[in-house]
C-alpha cells in the first residue's frame, strides 16, 4: 500500500473481466426477474419495469416493503433511497467526464457500481468514456439475457444459493475496487464506508447505510495528504 497512488496503473478491463461481468449480470437478471415476475404476475409488465426503473435493487426494495405491508409511499421512498448510491456514483463519474450534455445525461442514467468504478480508475478522459460504455454494454448484455430467460423460461439456474450465486455480485465488486484498495486513501474510504454500513444495517431504513457510507470518502479526503501532482489520485 502506498500514499503515492495505486501500486499498478489501472488496466482497461479485458475480455475475461467483461465476460465475467456479463455472466454475473446474467445470473442477477434471471434471479431478480423470476422474483419480480412472481410479484408482478405479468411477463410484459416485468420486462417494462426492468427497462423503466433500470435499477434492480430499487425494484427489490419496493417489492420488499410492499410484501411487508408497507404503504406505496414507504415503498417508493425505500426504492429511491436504495438507488441513491447511483446518484453518488454519478457524481464521481461526472467529475471525470469531458463530454457534451446529452452524452453526460446518457452516462448518468447508466451509472452503476461496476461501470463507474472501473471508468473512474482510468488515467485520461477518453479512456474513462471508452471503459464506461464497454463495461455498460457487457453488463446490459448479461442483464437483459438473464431478464428474458428469467421472465420467459423461468429459473433455469435453479437454487441460486445452493450454487453460491449470491456471492457472485459482491465478489465481482470486490475485484473491481481491488485497485482502489491498494492505496491508503482508497482503503480508508472503503474501511470507513463499509464499517458505517455494518453498524447501521440492523437499525437504519433500507438504503440509508449505503448513503451514509459516503462519509468514508470524506474521511479519506480529509485525513490523507493531497498529492503533489495535481490530478493524480493518491
Amino acid at each position, binding site marked *: 500500500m502506498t500514499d503515492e497512488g495505486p501500486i499498478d496503473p489501472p488496466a482497461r478491463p479485458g475480455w*475475461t473481466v467483461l465476460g*465475467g*461481468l456479463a*455472466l*454475473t449480470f446474467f445470473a442477477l437478471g434471471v434471479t431478480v426477474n423470476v422474483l419480480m415476475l412472481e410479484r408482478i404476475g405479468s411477463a410484459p409488465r416485468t420486462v417494462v419495469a426492468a427497462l423503466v*426503473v*433500470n*435499477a434492480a435493487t*430499487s425494484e427489490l426494495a419496493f417489492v420488499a416493503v410492499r410484501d411487508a405491508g408497507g404503504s406505496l409511499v414507504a415503498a417508493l421512498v425505500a426504492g*429511491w433511497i436504495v*438507488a441513491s*448510491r*447511483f*446518484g*453518488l*456514483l*454519478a*457524481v*464521481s*463519474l*461526472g*467529475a471525470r467526464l469531458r463530454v457534451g450534455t446529452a452524452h453526460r*445525461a446518457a*452516462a*448518468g*442514467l447508466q*451509472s452503476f457500481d461496476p461501470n463507474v468504478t472501473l471508468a*473512474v480508475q482510468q488515467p485520461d478522459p477518453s479512456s474513462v468514456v471508452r471503459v464506461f460504455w464497454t463495461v455498460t454494454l457487457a453488463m446490459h448484455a448479461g442483464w437483459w439475457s438473464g431478464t428474458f430467460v428469467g421472465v420467459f423460461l423461468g429459473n433455469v439456474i435453479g437454487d441460486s444459493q445452493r*450454487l*453460491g450465486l*449470491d*456471492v*457472485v455480485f*459482491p*465478489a465481482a465488486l*470486490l*475485484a473491481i*475496487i*481491488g485497485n*482502489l484498495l491498494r492505496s491508503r486513501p482508497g*482503503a480508508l*474510504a*472503503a474501511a*470507513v*464506508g*463499509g464499517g458505517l454500513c*455494518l453498524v447501521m*444495517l440492523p*437499525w437504519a431504513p433500507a438504503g440509508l*447505510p*449505503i448513503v451514509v457510507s*459516503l*462519509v*468514508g*470518502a*470524506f474521511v*479519506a*479526503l480529509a485525513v490523507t495528504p493531497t*498529492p503533489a501532482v495535481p490530478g493524480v*489520485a493518491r
Partner: protein
Amino acid sequence: MVFVLAGGVAAQRLVGMFAGAALLARVPSLARLASLIPAAVVAAVIVQLTVASGKSIVVDERLAGMAVAGVLVWRRAPFVVVVLAAAATTALLRAM
C-alpha cells in the same frame, strides 16, 4: 407507480451527474472524491450483500466465500477466478 419509482431513480442519477459533478469541479480540493466515492459506497454494498439478511447481521457461508475472494484479489488473481472461487467456496460449505 413503476414510472414514479423510475423517475426518482433517474432524477438522482442526473442530479449526481450534473449538480454533484459541477460541485466537485468548482471546488478542486474535492476532486479526489471522484475515486474515493466508489471505494466507500461499493465497500458498503459489499458489506451489505455479504453479511445482511434483512435487518439482521448473519455470518454464514457468504463470508467465507468473500474471504476467499479477498485473498485472491490481494494476490491479483484474474476477475473470473475471484468470482468463481467465491461462489464455489460458498456452495461447497453449504453442501457440507
